[in-house]
């Protein structure tokens, strides 16, 4: 019996309700909020955290946690930009290399979790430090600028019916849909849930638990690499300082999205909504002209309210 039963997972609908409530509230506070331009902005702002959160969700669904995600992303983006700018590699090839490096870090995490049977918290705490240090040493802590446009093109926007849509946003949404269908419609996806829900049962039914876990960590690394590409496109530089606050941000998105930290329960689309909720709070409060410290205060209250509202609606519904 998992102790997580205490925390009724807030399921599939909850995060959407919370998001809708937040949007409604801000719409009454500022007429700029509901414009297509503003909303498109919010989505662009959560693009990087959103894609990182795909990887984080996969890992949390297996009852693990990944503290290395932001730092691994930063390393990936430095590899891409340095190879493309300083070593003159074709940008496409540089991108492949960057994603390969982040996937390898994922592999390292996966091997340590499965082969050495270490808790994911410790493993990724270690690799977080390692990735950070390698990033600083490799880049000499220098930002890489003057990137070929090839690297920034996925940050471009085009207009659909008066609203700006960025290529990166589409990519993010596409990746979410892909991850979602893979989790719900394929055998490996189902095995992932089983491993997170009851590892021992998964093992006894003949699921290769280690292979599932290693696959998950590698996939997560892959998504961190993609997030790195998006961050390059969004900022237009290779930034060795990137990724430092992203761990908590991604875990927040996942939990706000209704996934249990105890594994096996949750829907990945929730993480996207969770990431957007945070973006909406920040954007809405700024539009209202709330001072930054007070924003922090209100965000604290709103985060609790968002989950509480849903919890209550659930009780009423019973």
């Amino acid at each position, binding site marked *: 019996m*998992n102790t997580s039963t205490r925390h009724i997972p807030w399921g599939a609908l909850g995060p959407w309700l919370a998001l809708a409530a937040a949007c409604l509230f801000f719409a009454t506070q500022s007429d700029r909020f509901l414009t297509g331009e503003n909303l498109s902005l919010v989505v662009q702002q959560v693009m990087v955290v959103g894609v990182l959160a795909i990887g984080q969700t996969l890992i949390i669904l297996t009852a693990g946690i990944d503290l290395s995600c932001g730092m691994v992303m930063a390393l990936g983006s430095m590899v891409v930009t340095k190879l493309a700018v300083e070593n003159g590699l074709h940008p496409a090839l540089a991108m492949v290399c960057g994603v390969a490096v982040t996937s390898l870090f994922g592999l390292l995490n996966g091997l340590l979790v499965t082969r050495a049977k270490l808790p994911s918290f410790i493993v990724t705490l270690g690799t977080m430090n390692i990735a950070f240090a390698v990033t600083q040493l490799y880049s000499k802590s220098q930002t890489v600028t003057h990137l070929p446009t090839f690297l920034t093109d996925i940050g471009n926007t085009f207009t659909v019916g008066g609203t700006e849509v960025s290529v990166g946003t589409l990519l993010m949404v596409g990746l979410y849909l892909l991850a979602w269908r893979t989790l719900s*419609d*394929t*055998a*490996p996806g*189902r*095995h992932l*849930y*089983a491993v997170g*829900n*009851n590892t*021992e*049962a*998964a*093992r*006894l*039914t*003949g*699921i*290769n638990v280690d292979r599932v876990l290693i696959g998950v960590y590698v996939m997560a690394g892959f998504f961190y690499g993609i997030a790195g590409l998006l961050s390059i496109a969004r900022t237009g530089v290779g930034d060795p300082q990137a990724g430092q606050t992203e761990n908590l941000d991604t875990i927040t998105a996942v939990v706000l999205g209704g996934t249990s930290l105890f594994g*096996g*329960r949750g829907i990945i689309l929730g993480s996207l909504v969770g990431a957007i909720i945070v973006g909406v709070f920040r954007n809405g409060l700024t539009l209202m002209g709330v001072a930054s410290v007070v924003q922090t205060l209100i965000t604290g209250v709103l985060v609790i309210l968002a989950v509480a509202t849903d919890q209550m609606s659930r009780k009423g519904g019973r």
Partner: protein
Amino acid sequence: MNAPQQHTLVMQAKGIVKRYGQVTALDGTDFELRAGEILAVIGDNGAGKSSLIKALSGATVPDEGELLLDGKLVHFKSPIDARRAGIETVYQDLAVAPAMTIAENLFLGRELLKDHPLGRALRMLDKKAMLAQAVQRMNDLKVGIRSMTQAVETLSGGQRQCVAVARAAAFAQHVVIMDEPTAALGVKEGNMVLELIRRVRDKGLPVILISHNMPHVFEIADRIHIQRLGKRAAVVNPKVISMSDTVAVMTGAKLVEELPAEALA
């Protein structure tokens, strides 16, 4: 009832030892399963029955001893190895994923894939087929479960056990092992499971049945393996020996030597 073929041994274990820290769960136990038979394994609580079948099914790796499948030495390093060899097991603690549905649990690790090249390549689930089969298998056990898309954690104790039994019976290719499959079942459901076990045997697959239910054991078993203090105390023939003598051997009240020779099997 099919008579067991002339003592072809499907599974054989010799001198299996399994220790957990201070506790010796298996103390050099032997084991033999003949082709096409239902072999009951009985013994007091803690006698080592579950430990034995965990060793046979790859769930644990024994500290000593050897295991033969169809006369060939095998080393099961994990349940995956045993499953590859066609062995399906119902574990005493059921090994289900509580948050997943009945249908999902039934096909866990053996999912049906969409039957087209893309489906196989991407390992896409054929959910419709799995649902249909789940309904049918559970109906076979006459267990009144309304919906196959219910999470297993919402089932009653007996319903949960039926899920595990149905899974093992459905997928076995070579040997079926059941650790107390009827413990939580009602009279009707328990009889359905006995019926199912017979059907499996009649398909030619040998079944290992662990049970504390002596009437069940005597009703269905071809031979009875008596486990005592981590060892095999005797294998007896239920058609010859009485239930009370069997229990006496099991609890240590009677020595094997005191049994008539024809009682042994």
